[in-house]
Structure formats: C-alpha cells, structure tokens
C-alpha cells in the first residue's frame, strides 16, 4: 500500500480568501459569522451566516466564465488554483491521464437554481439562460477543475450532505493508497447562502439566530457558511522524489451508515466510523492528540458526538483536544470537511490547535477538552476529522505529522 501525503492546500471561506489568512483567523479565534447580505434577507427568520465577503467574481473570472461558473464552482476554482500552485505540479502526458479530481458538495449550484426559479416563477418569464444546467449540476466544479488543470483521470463528485468532502477526500486517499493513481485533487465546496437555501434550512428549526456555539450548554443551533477548500493528495514516494513540501500525511479513512434516522445522529454509527478510521490507520487511541469535531452546535449532534468519542477513546477522551471550527466559519455543509482539514494541517504542522469559539457554558453532556475560545499550542502526532451527515452517513479521516 502506498503512503498518501498532502502537498498543496487552497481555500476561500468566511475567514479568509486563502490558506494563510484562514489559518491566521483560526489561530486568533476570529469569527467569520455575521449578518447575511443577500436578496430578500428581511424575509428570513435566520439572518446570519459565514458568508464570503469582499469577493468580486469579476476580479477573477471573465464574463463568459461567470456565465458558466456558479458561486460554488468559482470558490472551487480559486481554492484549486492555490492548492495546485503550492504543490508545484503540471499535469501533462501520461501523468495527466492518471490524475483526477474528486470533490464534495451537497447542493451544487444552489444560487443558480434560486436565481432561475425566481426568473420563471416570480418574474413569470418563460425563458432562462442557456447554461443553467451546466452551471448548477453538482459535478460542474469538478469538471471545471479538470479542464483548468488538464486532469484526465478518475473524476467525479460526491454528495453526502454534510459528509460530502470527507467522503470525497476518502475516495482520493483510497485511489492513491491502492496505487491506482499518483495524484488526486480533492476537497469540496458549498454555496447555499441565498434566499431559497437559507429558507429551506429554517424549516428544520435547527438554525441559530445569533451564533454557532458548539459544545456550549447554551448552544442553540447551527449557522450556515459557504466557501471551498481543495487539496493535492499525492503518493509519498512521488512527492519525495520531486522534493515536494509535505503538509501532512493522510493515514486512515472509514465510513459507516447509521441505518436509523434521516436527521437524528447515532452514537453507534459515529463511534464505528471513528474507531474504523483508527483501525484503518493502524493508530492506537492514545496516539490521537486532536479531533476536529463535526460540532455543528445543535443540541443533538454535539452530545452524540461527545458520547461517541468518549465510547471509542475511554480514558484517553479526557486527554485529547476536540474543537469545532464551525464556530468561526459556519457549517459549509458539503464543503465543511475540506475547510476543517485545514485546522488538522495546522495542528500537525504548526502545533496550533484551532479553538471552539463562542463557548460560554460547560455542558455536562459535552465534558471534553473543547479548546474553548482560544487557540492552543500543542505538539500532536496524529489527528482525526469527523463528518456526520444527515441521512446517517459518517466519514472520518485520520492524519499524521510528516
């Protein structure tokens, strides 16, 4: 089996328009959540989100590109550019035919659906732009990345709600580990902060109107975010031979299905994914220093996740750190695991643990070290990152310092 390392990372999200800015915000425990600036926001009962501000598509893309790129595709392309340029790879010949791109998104071009439904339903028009379908399809981002970087190998999009990115990165990991390919571009993206996107979430009554406070006793729900993170996963020997800088090593992956409820999480399903990732990685429980939690800030997720971690880790659960960066960048739904992987890289490479901000009151049902409010310096050798989706689909990745 081949070893798999990360040799490039890119992002755009509410905390920053690139990786250094995002990691700086995480170190400083800055909050990217604020008032939503979207059309018809006054008709929403939830009016906050982790929105990408100071972003003008026209500084990055021409008009023809914008007519084809939904916001989730734009974010993906920007993140992919940062990642591929960091890795310093060019895809040509046989290498290009093997290399591919696997990305996660839950909703794909939600803004495009929203805008065009307005056109036909609200404005009563009988005609929409000819590129609506290629713009909104879930695989649009993966396809445009493949075109931009000449990636001709296995490429597709994974949609498993809030676990999409972790499932996507798990696929990329498997492909390189098995020797099928040397390099995969992977990660995920989401952009559903539009009237219809937020309105749909409001219906479930699980959204907070003021802040995302994971693990805090007074938490009152999740807050949506948007953005993308993209990584270059590479065969260790390939990376080493070309002298590439390695950000971290991906060592294990596990996925499970609760097979029980369409929205309520299951401790057993989560615990099986966590212990499965440890087993796949060949890591002992006490080697894990940090877990990037799914930590949505809902009553149900956070207590179930803490119970699952306590079950798997036993006494060591009290020694490890677990934080939810969703408190800062919001819940990027299908893109969330990718942005959260950045916190894992920071923990392993820089020895800095991103905090859970907005933490106000201890909850006896979440009695773990959640790194409240301030980042912490700590040397960790191995970490996990959790994603537990609606529909009961769980995906956990294990990583190590290189």
């Amino acid at each position, binding site marked *: 089996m081949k070893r798999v390392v990360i040799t490039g990372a890119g992002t755009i999200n509410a905390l920053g328009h690139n990786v250094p800015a995002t990691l700086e915000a995480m170190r400083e425990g800055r909050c990217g959540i604020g008032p939503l600036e979207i059309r018809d926001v006054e008709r929403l009962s939830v009016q906050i989100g982790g929105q990408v501000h100071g972003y003008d598509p026209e500084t990055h893309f021409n008009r023809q590109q914008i007519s084809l790129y939904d916001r989730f595709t734009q974010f993906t392309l920007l993140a992919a550019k940062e990642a591929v340029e960091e890795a310093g790879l060019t895809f040509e010949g046989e290498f290009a035919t093997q290399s591919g791109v696997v990305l996660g998104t839950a909703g794909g071009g939600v803004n495009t659906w929203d805008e065009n439904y307005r056109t036909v339903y609200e404005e009563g028009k009988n005609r929409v732009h000819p590129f609506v379908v290629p713009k909104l399809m879930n695989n649009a981002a993966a396809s445009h990345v493949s075109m931009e970087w000449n990636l001709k190998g296995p490429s597709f999009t994974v949609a498993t709600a809030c676990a999409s990115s972790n499932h996507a990165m798990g696929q990329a990991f498997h492909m390189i580990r098995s020797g099928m390919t040397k390099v995969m571009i992977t990660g995920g993206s989401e952009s559903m902060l539009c009237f219809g996107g937020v309105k749909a979430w409001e219906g479930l009554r699980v959204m907070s109107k003021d802040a995302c406070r994971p693990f805090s006793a007074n938490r*009152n729900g999740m807050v949506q975010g948007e953005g993308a993170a993209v990584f270059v996963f590479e065969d260790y020997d390939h990376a080493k031979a070309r002298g590439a800088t390695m950000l971290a090593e991906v060592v294990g992956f596990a996925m499970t299905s609760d097979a029980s409820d369409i929205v309520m999480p299951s401790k057993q399903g989560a615990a099986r994914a966590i212990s499965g990732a440890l087993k796949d990685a060949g890591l002992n429980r006490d080697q894990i220093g940090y877990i990037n939690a799914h930590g949505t800030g809902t009553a149900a997720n956070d207590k179930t996740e803490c119970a699952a971690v306590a079950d798997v880790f036993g006494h060591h659960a009290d020694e490890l750190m677990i934080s939810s960066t969703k408190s800062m960048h919001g819940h990027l739904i299908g893109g969330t695991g990718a942005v959260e992987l950045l916190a894992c890289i920071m923990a392993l490479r820089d020895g800095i643990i991103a905090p859970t901000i907005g933490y106000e009151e201890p909850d006896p049902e979440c009695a773990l070290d959640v790194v409240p409010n301030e980042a912490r310096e700590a040397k960790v050798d191995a970490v996990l990152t959790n994603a537990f989706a609606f529909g009961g689909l769980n995906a956990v990745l294990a990583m190590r310092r290189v």
Partner: protein
Amino acid sequence: MPETVKQRVIQIIADQAILEVSDISMSQTLEELGIDSMGLVESIFAIEEAFDIQVPFNANDPEASDFDISSVASIVSAVEKLVADQTA
C-alpha cells in the same frame, strides 16, 4: 358554528399522530401520542400555516421558547395566545 382554535389544533395533532380526534385528550403529551421531534416540527409548520402565525420554536432548545409543548392543552393555549396577539 365555526371551528375553534382548539378544535383545529387538535385536528392537526390527530392528523400527525394518525389518530381520531376523539382519541386525543388534553392532558396527553406528544410523546404519549407517538409524535417524535420530526413530527413536532411538522405539527408546528401545520399550525403556522393554518393560523398564519409565527411559532417561536427552536428544536435545539424547546424549553427556551415561550411556546409550551408539554401537553396538548399547553399547545392549544399557546396557539390561542399567538392568534389573539395577532388579531389584537
């Protein structure tokens, strides 16, 4: 005689519980009626639609809102209050 708020709320709860209206007693809890958290969210949606009101309810912390869901009676009186506030 026009349908009262109480009758309409009980009808909504009965529909959600898949029971006859006559099987619903005011002292029963939603749990006793077999209505889970998803059923509750659907019932609240149906109540909002029926009376054109906003029900303050967050599934993360049902007790924090003024909307008391501890029994059929408490739900009926909470809805009656919201309807009265709206017409006032």
